[in-house]
């Protein structure tokens, strides 16, 4: 993966830059010692590492504004960082950048149950947003797998999803407002405690802009009352075609489950060896969860079980209580960990139309043989968001490159069948150079034109999202 050559004129001014930043921040909020900046050298895409010039940890909007103003004046690139859990390299530094970490900004500013929102500083973790409101019976709906660690700032940057977005949507559908600092230090407030912010939907563009338009310091998030209850059912089938048909039939029957998860045989085998959840050995396993009162759940599950039974399942298991529900989810929740026990893995997240599922799985199986790398598939089946996990050995020369080439072929396939490169992880550096597969030059030009407005000098996280040669003229201008 290529990154731009660091700007020598920035590298040579390190001492000056650190001095200026130290003038606007408390002493302990500027990290410039090479032993300490190493903590920021990568995110969860650990194959790529590069220590930054320095890192800063501002505590509020004013300090973020001061940092950006200084960097803007001095022409220093900035890479914003939430909790560093990006799987796409969204927070990967360049050697000439200042890492702007929001980790210190984790306060709850306001909770309002009547108007159903919470306002937080953006460094707060996803799960602790729910943590702040759950004693009142409320929750924040988007639930990425990394929710224990990931920050709201990163969720907004990547427009994160989760397992339950079939019903509740992703970050953009639950974000009501932000306070954001532009690269020149200007503070803008967009939206608030009302629905559908006025004017152009700038909030909609900021969400998912991967930290390239500004640094979000505060967010107003929609909170919901928890459902009375939720319960899953597990079903196993002899082919992915049949499992795909079951998903379609459930949706066409007018039922909107809160989650529909899919696992294929390699994934089932790995999780069974690891977590012993008692899953059936079969080609395709589905976990379907519904919500409501016990009576409502019973009624929905009855319909779902009827549909499932019509397709000759090798196993059909309904959770009768919380214990059984826990066991059904156990394997799915340990899937990534289980695959990680076997080898290093790369997790993709292309999305496909649900109808293409059998074809895509078949092709992935064939490609797995061609590339000589095993792959397991975990999948948000309701919304078509795939998570192929390609296994490779990071210590074996050439394996990472082979894995990346395999991954690129899978993502191209996703686009070919009418889907996209990334459903919830973001482009970052990982899928940057594949953007031309999904978009024509005019499409990318329109997107880059937006960055021109917010960050004319292209200082914010500039080496991400767009293919380097496509953004070259702007980055070096």
């Amino acid at each position, binding site marked *: 993966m290529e990154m731009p050559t660091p700007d020598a004129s920035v590298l040579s001014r390190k001492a000056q830059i650190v001095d200026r930043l130290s003038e606007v921040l408390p002493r302990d909020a500027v990290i410039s010692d090479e032993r300490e900046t190493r903590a920021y050298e990568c995110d969860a895409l650990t194959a790529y590492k590069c220590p930054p010039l320095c890192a800063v940890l501002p505590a509020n909007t004013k300090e973020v504004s001061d940092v950006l103003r200084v960097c803007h004046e001095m022409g220093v690139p900035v890479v914003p960082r939430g909790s560093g859990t990006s799987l796409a390299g969204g927070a990967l530094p360049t050697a000439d950048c200042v890492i702007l970490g929001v980790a210190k900004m984790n306060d709850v500013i306001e909770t309002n149950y009547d108007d159903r929102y919470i306002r937080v500083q953006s460094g707060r973790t996803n799960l602790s947003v729910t943590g702040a409101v759950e004693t009142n019976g409320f929750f924040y709906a988007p639930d990425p797998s990394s929710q224990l660690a990931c920050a709201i700032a990163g969720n907004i940057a990547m427009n994160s999803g989760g397992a339950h977005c079939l019903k509740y949507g992703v970050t953009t559908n639950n974000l009501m407002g932000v306070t954001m600092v532009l690269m020149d230090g200007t503070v*803008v407030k967009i939206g608030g405690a009302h629905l559908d912010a006025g004017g152009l939907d700038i909030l909609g563009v900021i969400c998912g802009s991967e930290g390239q338009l500004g640094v979000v310091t505060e967010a107003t998030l929609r909170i919901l009352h928890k459902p009375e209850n939720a319960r899953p059912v597990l079903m196993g089938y002899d082919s992915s075609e049949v499992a795909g048909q079951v998903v379609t039939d459930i949706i066409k029957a*007018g039922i909107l489950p809160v989650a529909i998860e899919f696992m294929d045989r390699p994934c089932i085998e790995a999780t069974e060896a690891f977590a012993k959840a008692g899953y059936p050995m079969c080609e395709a396993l589905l976990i379907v969860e519904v919500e409501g009162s016990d009576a409502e759940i019973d009624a929905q599950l009855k319909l779902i079980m009827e549909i499932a039974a019509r397709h000759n399942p090798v196993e059909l298991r309904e959770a009768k209580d919380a214990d059984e529900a826990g066991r059904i989810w156990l394997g799915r929740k340990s899937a990534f960990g289980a695959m990680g026990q076997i080898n290093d893995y790369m997790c993709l997240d292309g999305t496909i139309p649900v109808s293409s599922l059998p074809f895509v799985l078949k092709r992935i199986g064939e490609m797995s043989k061609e590339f000589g790398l095993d792959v397991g598939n975990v999948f948000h089946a309701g919304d078509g968001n795939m998570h192929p996990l390609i296994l490779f050995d990071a210590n074996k020369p050439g394996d990472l490159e082979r894995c990346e080439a395999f991954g690129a072929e899978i993502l191209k396939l996703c686009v070919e069948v009418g889907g996209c490169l990334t459903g919830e992880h973001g482009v970052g550096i990982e899928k940057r150079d594949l953007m031309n597969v999904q978009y024509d030059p005019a499409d990318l030009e329109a997107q880059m034109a937006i960055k021109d407005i917010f960050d004319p000098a292209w200082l914010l996280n500039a080496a991400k999202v767009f293919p380097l040669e496509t953004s070259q003229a702007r980055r070096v201008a």
Partner: protein
Amino acid sequence: MTPKSEEELAQMIAGANGPLRIKGGGTRPIGHCEGDVLNTSAMRGISLYEPGALTIVAGAGTPVAEVEKVLATENQRLAFEPMDHRALLGTEGAPSLGGLAAANVSGPRRISVGACRDFMLGVRFVDGQGNIIKNGGRVMKNVTGYDLVKLLTGSYGTLGVITEVSLKVLPDVETTGTLRLHGLSDHQAVTALSAALGSPFEATAAAHFPKGPSGDPVTMLRIEGFADSVKYRADRLRDLLKAYGEVEVAVGDGAEWGLVRDVTAFADQPGDVWRISAKPSEAPDLVARMDAKAVQYDWGGGLIWALTDKGRDLRAAMGAFDGHATLIRGAADVPTFQPEVPALAAITAGLRAKFDPRGILNPGITT
């Protein structure tokens, strides 16, 4: 001008010498602008409908009614419940999908499932220089690049002319239950609706009429789903709200919500019509400051419709508040949209200058 294809539209825009007024079905003349009419009605037709994937793709000129009819054959619907502006604005014609998207038109169910913009999966559009641009796609989860789908939705044609729309759809419901409370003050009503919306019982609409059909206040909640589930939740909500008085429950097809959605009560009344998005708990005080001829609340108080004397700038009466006001029906001397603070106005102006450097797409509509 009525282009038959995206390519023809692109040529027309590239070759245009003056302002263009973009027209879909012509049923929502919100805002004021002059220019040659550019009609999208010939770019129509449903190109893809996959009920099992909850996805439909159609040309911008496709009538909304045609889309709804096709969805109904599979028991599905546009869940954001787009308002029909014809009665309120005294227009005729057939609302189009492109107009729906360009004005981000939603209805009472927005409070529970989201707005039009939340169901938009993809767009194709032609910008002010005649470039054909696509963004998003036809899948439900997509974070590939910037979300121009949201930016175009609700941009009132000022950034580009939408040619194709891809939408997420949802299953239709078996039964609708409507709960009614009578005689509540605005404050009581919003508090009651907040209690219902903050419960696990999933109300899909929450409205209040200070003057209902009989002249007395009526507060309404809607629950939808399978029949047993609707009955169960109606009972629980009745318990939850008993402090506010007796709750009437009616089960049926929910036709009464069409009146809420289309603001039918103001249709034949003279005066300007304002649409105000607000923080629900602040809505009654805002209404008190408005001195309107009539109001109705939707979205649990978060959306206020106000009928006022002609030519008044309601924003001056309300003062600063968390939200924004749009003049949906009124004269050109009052700004249609809420003026933005300078930092935001600069971004908006920058975006318009990038996408339409000659300023020919619906000029004047957003001022």
